[in-house]
């Protein structure tokens, strides 16, 4: 059983991403969407916390939301991949459960 977690808020605005990171299980996926994509950026105060989790869970950023915000792929934390809406749908189908962190 694996869960797709979605986080849509910037980790500098709310503690939602932090809370999500504290409640994921090994093998889960976290998809950062909307303002959540800011949590994928390297060099931020959140980067270490996020990087530490990339071994246990798959962390992915939604590319359309990154592009909207002018975030290039090369600015992402190493180990974070990107996907599009088609990929988002695939992730939702592939994982047994969807958990939106609001």
């Amino acid at each position, binding site marked *: *059983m694996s*869960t797709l977690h979605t986080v849509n808020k910037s980790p500098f605005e709310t*503690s*939602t991403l932090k*809370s999500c990171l*504290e*409640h*994921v*299980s090994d093998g*889960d996926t976290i998809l950062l969407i909307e303002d959540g994509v800011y949590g994928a950026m390297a060099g931020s105060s959140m980067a270490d916390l996020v990087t530490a989790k990339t071994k246990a869970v798959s962390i992915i950023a939604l590319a359309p939301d990154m592009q909207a915000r002018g975030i290039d792929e090369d600015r992402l934390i190493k180990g974070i991949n990107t996907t599009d809406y088609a990929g988002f749908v695939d992730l939702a189908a592939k994982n047994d*459960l*969807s*958990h*939106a*962190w*609001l």
Partner: protein
Amino acid sequence: MAIREIKMSETVKKFLYVNRKAPYGTIYALESLEVVLIGAAFDQDVSLAFLDDGVFQLTKGQDTKEIGVKNFSPTYRALGDYEVTKLYVEKESLAERGLSADDLQELVWEDEDDDYAEKPSIRIIDRTEMAKLMANQDVVLSF
């Protein structure tokens, strides 16, 4: 019966309602509770999770007279009668907010399999147990 109705009458899923927001400053706590109450009629396996600021929803002594909004905290006491008996409160979230179990309402349910003995609905669990609870659901509703 139509296929939808048949499937409805045969399916029991594990529903988890996730509450992470404080009451009154926003409507999420109230409208989440409204879903729980309506949902009770559907005979699913329901659990409620209270973590982060969601733990504030269950505190005692809420008096909303001076802000003019309805005090809906008494409604949590009715959950037992609706057979919603599993309210999981996260230990770390309480501690981070300087709260203890004593700050929370005493919510009970009557176990008809045990001579209607009153049992506590609030179960305080730690973060690891909360993560496990979340992982083992069929549907997660966040508000």
